[in-house]
């Protein structure tokens, strides 16, 4: 026991010296290591750079500096719990863990601790029902929206009918990858296509057998719910079996440059969902260049600027900043706490005019959050990879999801959660 106590004592000294209360403390549970780092790094960079911009250009939000404390989770739920506990004591305002597994774990904890949890485009889909999930926000779009948008796009491609078609879902065999299955099953009953489920186990570096199965069963379309190295491997394997790339659609987490570049020309024509624009053609980049990049204050290596996931990290940061502004306005003080931040999220309304003011015109969809609806409109676009220009091109506008199918599913799943955990409905 002697040794363990010595270690404990040392840890005690260290833990006591964690950073003191900051003005606006926003922890970033990021992952820059492990098999999911290709997705985690650009997101964390974009997230941090946007707050650096606010600090440098505007002196923070409402005069309060923002402190972004990074904590490495390696996409691992145990480390995620440790990071949450380590950072919440310093007055954390909001969590954005970029991991569906960690999100599931944090939902009861943040609800208990009164801290909002913002999971744009990931996490627990049924958290869109604000009546049950008071502290969780997943606007502007979630997995089920994504699944529905992909099917709607395919319906359009096929003149309104998917009768007799076969659609394969290649998914990460985890909570994240399984999320869309129920929606796709419901939609298959409605539209008459056949759904084929192809799970890929963590971390997804080995997919020969899955793609062999796809080659044998010849689905008309392949949808993918992948993340990290799994994406790049899947696109490479699809190219190897000469699967027509234009019939291969990834969710927005399977549509970044890091996923398609390794496959080279083979990835040409690959499509993915997009819940926001991408590239550097937005006015905000002029400010970022002036205040952040040229000042040498970029997060990480600074080589991810303008990529899809960098844009997404920036988008998440911008929405958090907007919510903080709203919270300051509602609370009448600039030094807000987590409960006020939550109210800010719930009252958040982002219009196209506001996005243009932020330097992001035509970047994302306008939405308004309410007590009942934490999920936003859920529309998404389709983008396609051009391997010669090394560029994503948007090929559709925003497509709205099929709420007729999704709303009952959200209600059913959130009601099950409420029953299991004895939660009463709010907003009545």
């Amino acid at each position, binding site marked *: *026991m*002697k*040794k*363990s106590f010595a*270690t*404990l004592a*040392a*840890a005690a000294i*260290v*833990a006591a*010296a*964690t*950073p003191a209360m900051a003005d606006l403390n926003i922890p970033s549970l*990021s992952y*820059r*290591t492990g098999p999911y*780092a290709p997705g985690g*790094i650009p997101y964390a960079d974009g997230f941090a750079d946007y707050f650096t911009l606010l600090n440098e250009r505007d002196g923070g939000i409402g005069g309060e500096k923002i402190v972004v404390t990074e*904590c*490495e989770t*390696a996409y*691992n*739920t*145990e480390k995620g*719990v*440790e990071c949450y*506990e*380590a950072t*919440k*004591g310093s007055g954390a305002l909001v969590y954005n863990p970029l991991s*569906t*597994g960690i999100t*599931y*774990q944090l*939902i*009861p*904890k943040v*609800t*208990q*601790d009164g801290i909002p949890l913002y999971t744009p485009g990931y996490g*627990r*889909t*049924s958290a869109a029902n604000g009546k049950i999930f008071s502290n969780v926000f997943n606007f502007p779009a979630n997995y089920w929206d994504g699944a529905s948008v992909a099917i709607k796009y395919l319906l359009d491609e096929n003149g309104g009918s998917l009768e007799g078609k076969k659609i394969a879902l290649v998914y990460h*065999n*985890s*909570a*994240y990858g*399984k*999320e869309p*299955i*129920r929606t796709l099953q419901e939609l298959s009953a409605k539209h008459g296509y056949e759904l084929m489920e192809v799970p890929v*186990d*963590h971390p997804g570096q080995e997919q020969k057998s899955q793609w062999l199965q796809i080659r044998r069963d010849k689905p008309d379309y392949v949808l993918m719910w992948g993340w990290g190295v799994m994406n790049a491997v899947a696109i490479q394997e699809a190219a190897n079996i000469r699967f027509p790339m234009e019939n291969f659609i990834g969710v927005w987490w399977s549509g970044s440059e890091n996923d398609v570049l390794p496959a080279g020309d083979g990835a040409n024509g690959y499509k993915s969902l997009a819940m926001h624009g991408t590239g550097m053609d937005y006015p905000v980049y002029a400010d970022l260049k002036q205040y952040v990049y040229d000042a040498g204050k970029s997060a*990480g290596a600074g080589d991810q600027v303008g990529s899809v996931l960098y844009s997404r990290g920036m988008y998440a940061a911008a929405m958090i900043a907007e919510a903080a502004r709203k919270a300051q306005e509602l609370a009448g003080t600039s030094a807000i706490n987590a409960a006020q931040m939550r109210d800010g999220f719930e009252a958040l309304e982002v219009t196209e005019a506001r996005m243009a003011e932020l330097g992001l015109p035509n970047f994302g969809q306008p939405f308004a959050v309410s007590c009942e609806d934490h999920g936003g409109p859920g529309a998404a676009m389709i983008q396609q990879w051009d391997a010669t220009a090394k560029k994503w091109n948007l090929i559709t506008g925003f497509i709205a999801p099929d709420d007729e199918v999704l709303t009952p*599913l959200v209600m059913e*799943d959130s009601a*099950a959660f409420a029953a*299991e*955990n*004895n939660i009463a409905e709010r907003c009545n």
Partner: protein
Amino acid sequence: MFYREAGDFKTSYVDDSQTFPIKFDRWRYYAVLAVAFGVIPFLINDYWANAVFVPFLIYAIAAIGLNILTGYCGQVSLGTGGFMAVGAYACYKLMTAFPEVSILIHVLLAGGITAGVGVLFGLPSLRIKGFYLAVATLAAQFFLVWLFNKVPWFYNYSASGQISAPERTVLGHAVTGAATTASAKYLFCLVILFALAWLARNLTRGMMGRKWMAIRDMDIAAEIIGVNPLTTKLSAFAISSFYIGVAGALFFAVYLGAAEVGEAFGIQKSFLILFMIIIGGLGSIFGSFAGAAFMVLMPVLLKNVLVGQLGWATDLAAHVELIIVGALIMGFLIVEPHGLNQLWRLAKEKLRLWPFPH
């Protein structure tokens, strides 16, 4: 000077066969218990409970379990993660099916169910040994993870395949769910660990433990002197799996609160616990504690030093952490192949002779 048998007279057989024959050891043991039960619960906060103590206590249970099988009975197992998953899913099913029953009973029942599964997968050990058995248990690992992913009944048909622990209480205090206080979590795990460690220590000192060790040291010789390999090996599998199942149930219900099988109970968990007992020392209860402490606390400590104190970038720190922990493991095993427990034993030998080493 203080650490010696001299002057400590034993006047009965009970005294003579006690766990800690040296007075100083006994007092140290009581002091550790007093601190663990009487001091820490009043000082503990969420961070200390969730990042340090609760994982340490739970991994210690799992390490004791694996040590019974591998360290005492000599049956190498790589199925620990899978057996923890059995404990977790059994606990989840019981918790949701019988919400009014105390969680303590569910945890113990989950251990019992895991014991049954462990015996089933222990059957091949009667025919195969060593590496071949390791491969058979590896199959158990992959099969169990696949099973819990594949059959929706195990996760109550939830959309994502995640299981999450609802609030359950012991004597009116919540020990699972988000409202649990740090000290309730800690005490619940500590009580179970204390009871199980005490039981394990006494089992291994008794006839059962001697049978296990006889099988471990040379199974043919053991059979000749009358040790039944069937009951001995299967009892080791059953008891080991019971411990691991309890650890899995606690890991899911008390520590994580939500889990998905591939991530929380994958093959890396089997290796982690195997490393714990190798570093701690095979065939020793203290070694299980030391190994669990080393593998749980070292990364947290290094992270706090490198990121919190020195202000390094998180990715650099994470990579350096892997290098340091890896180097420490190799260093320890080169200096002392029998693990931390052997270091402790040598220290005790030295203490006995001190201050006159010759």
